[in-house]
């Protein structure tokens, strides 16, 4: 059964090759079909393997397949080994499932675009790389996927590369990610140095043996975490994600919301055994997560671009996941990762549908009152907003509360992390409702002549399926406090060590109370948004005028991009210019040119002999003869 594992990865690769190499002979429809079918194949095989996995006893749920040895260099043996255990199974199903829906949606969204074959080729390549990332047992192969998804992200952000700002956004994403990747590589080298292997399974097994060496473990985990910070857009390396919205909206949904950006969360969860041994790193992760969650949420409040709101919301939710990881609740983080994939993909695709229907308009100030023109989109967006806000009964509620509960429990009561998380939850509810209200309610503010229309069924059907998942996804993890069985937790517990599953033995009454509090906070957030944006639309302006500084800070994203420009990019450019004009031109170029000029001058001097005059040549000939004669006589 495990010998089918490679097919999961192989199918998207085939799709990529077909679309990438033979694309010019495919029609647009065939191209989309090939891409979707290959992902569907991966999804079906994953589902089939998951069913097989469930029949195994809990502690032996681990399918492995070693394909070949990729890099055999001395002690470093990099095997391409795919592992399907509960954690990667969840990831693979989310990736292929959501990915499949987004592929189908893309057929409609990208219709008529001249680059549609290239688009699907990139998308399939992304799937291949992402599946490599989550299925690999070896860190090097994981890194291959890690870089591969980064590449696809770059290619897809800059998909419309003729627009320079979009091409630049792609480069920005790539460069910012490099910072994290450098740390990742160093971490890999240190791991290999210490453990002699880069297989994560082996490392997890060997890690307790070095638990005494706290400094080493802290360093390694910190470096891995920096890698995750880059990929998962945490403070301070989050700046690329908002710009990444330049790509096509389905790409934003797939790569920059549901899958790639969660790779950092996956990396840490996968190496839970290692991270659990480094409390300092764990604390750092929690703090960075909280800061990111709160910080991004405050920015999202004032954004007017519908995709930017969602981008900052994604950063904020990723911060939530890191907060869970930092508090040791790996299971909660993965749970939230899954539910977030559902509702955030849903929100992005819904936003895509709105943008599509409005004729490529992304500014919410030019929308409004769209619920009649786009009933289906409105319905699913409503589900998505309620889910992310944490309204009971939808998936976001369960996963978010689990994280808050973990934070509460970790701190042994009410603590800063918990409070910040709670505040973020309120802000999330507020700005998501704001987005919903601005887009679908109130007065229509679009320009005359625009005909907002509902998307075709090839787009709405995936939306409806995602909406269903956004509701139902949460029931995999209904906490015991609500009479559930927390299925996902028990499923994941063999992989994520004891800390993950252990938590929920505590006081159920307290947990219930916390849930009520967070529901209250979310509800008040929604109510506030309702008051400001529907009840009295003029209050938004009044508030802006009342707190101009706060508004400006938030609307301008706290000037972080400008700050980076001032403290990193400008000095870098100045140093570069110094090297260019000083070192390169004056020294290196001068040396090279000087060498050339010297040779040219020597050549010019030597050329004097080559006068082109026969008599000069004849005299040389004569000198030679004389020389030979003298030599003969001398001997």
């Amino acid at each position, binding site marked *: 059964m495990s010998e089918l594992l490679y097919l999961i990865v192989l199918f998207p690769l085939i799709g990529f090759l077909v679309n990438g190499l033979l694309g010019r002979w495919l029609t647009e429809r065939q191209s989309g079909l090939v891409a979707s079918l290959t992902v569907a194949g991966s999804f079906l095989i994953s589902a089939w393997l998951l069913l097989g996995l469930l029949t195994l006893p809990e502690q032996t749920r681990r399918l492995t397949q070693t394909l070949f040895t990729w890099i055999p260099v001395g002690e470093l043996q990099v095997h391409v080994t795919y592992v399907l255990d509960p954690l990667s199974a969840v990831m693979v199903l989310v990736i292929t499932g959501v990915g499949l829906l987004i592929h189908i949606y893309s057929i409609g969204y990208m219709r008529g675009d001249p680059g549609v074959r290239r688009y699907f080729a990139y998308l399939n390549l992304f799937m291949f790389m992402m599946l490599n990332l989550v299925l690999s047992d070896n860190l090097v192969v994981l890194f291959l996927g890690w870089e591969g998804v980064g590449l696809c992200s770059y290619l897809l952000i800059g998909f419309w590369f003729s627009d320079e700002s979009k091409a630049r956004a792609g480069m920005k994403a790539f460069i910012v990610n490099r910072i994290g990747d450098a740390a990742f590589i160093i971490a890999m080298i240190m791991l290999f140095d210490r453990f002699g292997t880069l297989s994560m399974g082996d490392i997890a097994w060997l890690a307790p043996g070095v638990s005494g060496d706290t400094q080493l473990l802290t360093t390694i985990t910190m470096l891995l975490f920096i890698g995750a910070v880059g990929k998962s857009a945490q403070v301070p390396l989050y700046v690329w994600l908002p710009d990444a919205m330049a790509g096509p909206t389905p790409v934003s949904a797939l790569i920059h919301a549901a899958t790639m950006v969660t790779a950092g969360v996956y990396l840490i969860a996968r190496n839970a055994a290692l991270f659990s041994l480094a409390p300092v790193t764990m604390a750092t992760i929690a703090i960075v997560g909280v800061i990111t969650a709160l910080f991004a949420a405050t920015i999202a409040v004032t954004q007017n671009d519908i995709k930017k709101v969602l981008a900052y919301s994604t950063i904020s939710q990723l911060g939530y996941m890191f907060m869970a990881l930092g508090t040791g609740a790996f299971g909660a983080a993965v749970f939230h990762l899954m539910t977030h994939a559902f509702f955030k993909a849903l929100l992005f695709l819904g936003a895509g549908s709105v943008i599509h229907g409005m004729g490529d308009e992304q500014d919410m100030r030019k929308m409004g009152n769209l619920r009649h023109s786009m009933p289906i989109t409105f319905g699913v967006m409503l589900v998505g907003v309620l889910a992310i806000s944490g309204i009971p009964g939808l998936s976001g509620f369960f996963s978010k509360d689990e994280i808050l509960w973990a934070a509460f429990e970790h701190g042994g009561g009410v603590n800063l992390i918990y409070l910040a998380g709670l505040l973020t939850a309120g802000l999330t509810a507020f700005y998501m409702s704001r987005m919903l209200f601005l887009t679908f309610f109130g007065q229509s503010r679009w320009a005359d002549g625009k005909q907002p229309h509902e998307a075709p069924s090839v787009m709405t059907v995936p939306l409806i399926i995602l909406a269903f998942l956004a509701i139902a996804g949460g029931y995999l993890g209904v906490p015991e406090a609500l009479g559930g069985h927390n299925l996902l937790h028990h499923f994941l517990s063999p992989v994520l060590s004891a800390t993950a599953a252990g938590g929920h033995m505590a006081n159920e009454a307290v947990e219930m109370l916390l849930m009520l509090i967070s529901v209250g906070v979310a509800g008040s957030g929604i109510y506030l948004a309702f008051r400001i944006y529907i009840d009295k639309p003029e209050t938004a302006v009044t508030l802006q005028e009342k707190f101009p500084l706060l508004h400006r800070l938030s609307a301008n994203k706290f000037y972080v991009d400008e700050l980076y420009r001032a403290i990193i990019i400008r000095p870098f450019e100045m140093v570069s210019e110094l090297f260019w004009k000083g070192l390169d031109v004056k020294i290196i170029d001068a040396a090279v040119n000087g060498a050339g000029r010297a040779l040219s001058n020597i050549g010019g001097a030597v050329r004097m002999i080559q006068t082109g005059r026969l008599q000069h040549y004849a*005299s040389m000939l*004569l*000198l030679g003869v*004389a020389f030979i*004669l*003298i030599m003969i*006589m001398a001997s």
Partner: protein
Amino acid sequence: MTSILFYMFASLLIGSSLFVVLNRNPIYSVVMLVFAFANLAALYFLLEAYFIGILQILVYAGAIMVLFLFVVMLLNVGPDRARPQWAAMDRWWFGGMVGVVGLTLLALVTRGMGPLRSSAADIDDGFGEIAPLATDLFSRYLLPFETAALLLTVALIGTVFLAKRRI
């Protein structure tokens, strides 16, 4: 007596040859070359190469030099224009070449002659006259002789071809 004549003719030969090379006017050069070849013919006589001496006058001083004179007059070549500047480098070069070539040849003469016998071999009567030469030419050297005839024919055709058509 004969040795005095020899050195006299040799001096005239070298002097007129120098004149040929150093004079600017081609007409004078040609005339002086004729004179030089006449002196050379005299040297041949003194070296008892009578037939070669006659040939020297007939072929060189007669035929070849007339050809030269004819061409010089035909082309109406005037005296050489003076060199724009007889540069220092050229002067050094000239001196150097004279020295090198002259010294090499001188070394050849002085060193290479060392082992030679000091006196010449005895010769038969009629050495250098036409009969012994002709005997050899038409017996041992018949093939080269005929080849030379062919060469002259080819040269004749080539000359006519070159001089006649505009190339």
